[in-house]
């Protein structure tokens, strides 16, 4: 007995493009390629080569969400029985549609009442609308999570590939849900006017775009996972062990007459390094220690510095804007402290802002392609530097 040879074809359009999908299957049947039962896998259908046949294929939406592990994976047995009695055979499920075919040209169409057909399609359209709204919510949540589009900061710390892949996945998901809802909505309108789905032979025109999107839909999540697992801090050092010169000033330069020592009793001082295609160098510096002028004048101080060297000056200015936006939102949501701005207009920088927030001094500035975001805290009143002096020292150390 000759072994049946299977032929595989990638679907040329999504299942919700009912007219195109049906026409595709019918055109292949006319070429002698007959769809095998239950053989869709990752957008690839299995056919067997037989003699060319005039078959009618029709897609019927599932009443509820159909999945491999639930009762809607196959159609209701009562439906299948009625359809079988009229000459329509259930073949496979693809997406949220059951595929039926009929070899008898005299058998009535699956649907003879467009109004009722619109009702069954309408429930799928509702589910699609819910999925679309969920997709929009995900995008808004992503924006909120980033405290108002601080994408450049995210690129610095988690990596541009991860951020880009995440954005593309969200956009792809939204676009897919939108097109699905749009096409179903258009078809429903057509049925309400009394028209049934027709043969549409332009499935050939859309297949390249659809197949490209399908491949992207698989590759993007893989890239995202890859980026997530490969992206982490390039290196981490206890501050005392950091072997390289820092490209910015520290409290030792702010207080040249004082003895600045690390005190890790409560919290550890460290340096973390990151690199990224858009922001080749990021240094996250955390100092906790003492500033000692004399035996009687000692205070506990901390300095957090995020230093960035970007690929272009406009990215540096963008980082400054995002840091300001992030700080404003953080303050509104979390600390709710009064923000007192300082006049640092005499400090040489391309962009600079400095303010007192609660007990900390926040300084954000950029010069050329370099950015500094500093949080300075000093518990000793006598050793508070002039804020402008602090800003001058930090600004002078970069660019």
């Amino acid at each position, binding site marked *: 007995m000759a072994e049946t040879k299977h032929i595989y074809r990638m679907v040329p359009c999504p299942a919700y493009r009912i007219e195109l999908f049906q026409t595709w299957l019918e055109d292949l049947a006319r070429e002698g390629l007959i769809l095998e039962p239950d053989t869709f896998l990752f957008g690839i259908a299995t056919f067997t080569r037989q003699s060319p046949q005039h078959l009618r294929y029709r897609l019927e939406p599932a009443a509820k969400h159909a999945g491999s592990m639930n009762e809607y994976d196959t159609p209701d047995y009562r439906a299948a029985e009625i359809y079988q*009695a009229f000459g329509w055979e259930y073949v496979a499920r693809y997406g949220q549609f059951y595929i039926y075919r009929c070899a008898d040209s005299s058998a009535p169409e699956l649907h003879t*009442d467009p109004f009722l*057909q619109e009702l069954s399609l309408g429930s799928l359209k509702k589910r699609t609308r819910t999925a679309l709204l969920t997709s929009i919510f995900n995008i808004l949540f992503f924006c909120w999570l980033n405290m108002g589009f601080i994408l450049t900061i995210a690129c610095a710390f988690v990596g541009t590939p991860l951020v880009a892949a995440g954005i593309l996945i969200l956009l792809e998901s939204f676009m897919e849900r939108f097109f699905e809802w749009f096409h179903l909505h258009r078809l429903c309108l057509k049925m309400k006017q009394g028209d049934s789905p027709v043969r549409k032979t332009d499935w050939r025109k859309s297949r390249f775009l659809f197949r490209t999107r399908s491949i992207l839909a698989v590759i993007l999540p893989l890239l995202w996972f890859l980026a997530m697992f490969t992206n982490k801090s390039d290196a981490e050092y206890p501050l005392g062990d950091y072997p390289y010169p820092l490209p910015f000033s520290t409290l030792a330069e702010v207080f040249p007459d004082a003895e600045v020592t690390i005190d890790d009793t409560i919290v550890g001082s460290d340096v973390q390094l990151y690199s990224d295609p858009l922001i080749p160098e990021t240094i996250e510096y955390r100092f906790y220690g003492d500033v000692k002028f004399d035996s009687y004048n000692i205070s506990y101080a901390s300095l957090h510095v995020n230093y960035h060297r970007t690929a272009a000056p406009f990215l540096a200015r963008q980082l400054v804007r995002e840091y300001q936006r992030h700080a404003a939102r953080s303050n509104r949501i979390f600390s709710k402290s009064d923000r007192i701005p300082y006049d640092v207009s005499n400090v040489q920088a391309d962009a600079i802002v400095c303010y007192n927030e609660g007990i900390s001094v926040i300084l954000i500035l950029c010069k050329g392609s370099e950015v500094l975001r500093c949080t300075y805290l000093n518990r000793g009143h006598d050793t508070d530097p002039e804020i402008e002096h602090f800003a001058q020292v930090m600004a002078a150390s970069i660019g």
Partner: protein
Amino acid sequence: MPKKAMEILTESMFYVLMALHHGPMCGIDIAGWITGRTRGRVQLGPATLYTILGKFEKEGFITETEVEGRKRTYKITGKGSEAYCAELLRLRQCIADADEI
């Protein structure tokens, strides 16, 4: 809030009620009866029939009386008869209104 009863009966739905008003039938017999009654003008597809039977059962217009293998027999209920008669009256009124012109 109670669900609304089916307010719109399409031609297919009306003929299914008509067929069952005539007597209990199974699905394929309903389709055949309608095709014969309308001399082929109204054809009932299996998906249309399944949708109608499902909706009528849910609304209480019909009920399943017998299952014999693949053959399921339905009969119209009192509620279904009322809906059928109401629709018949409405259609007659439409024709009467048109005849007056």
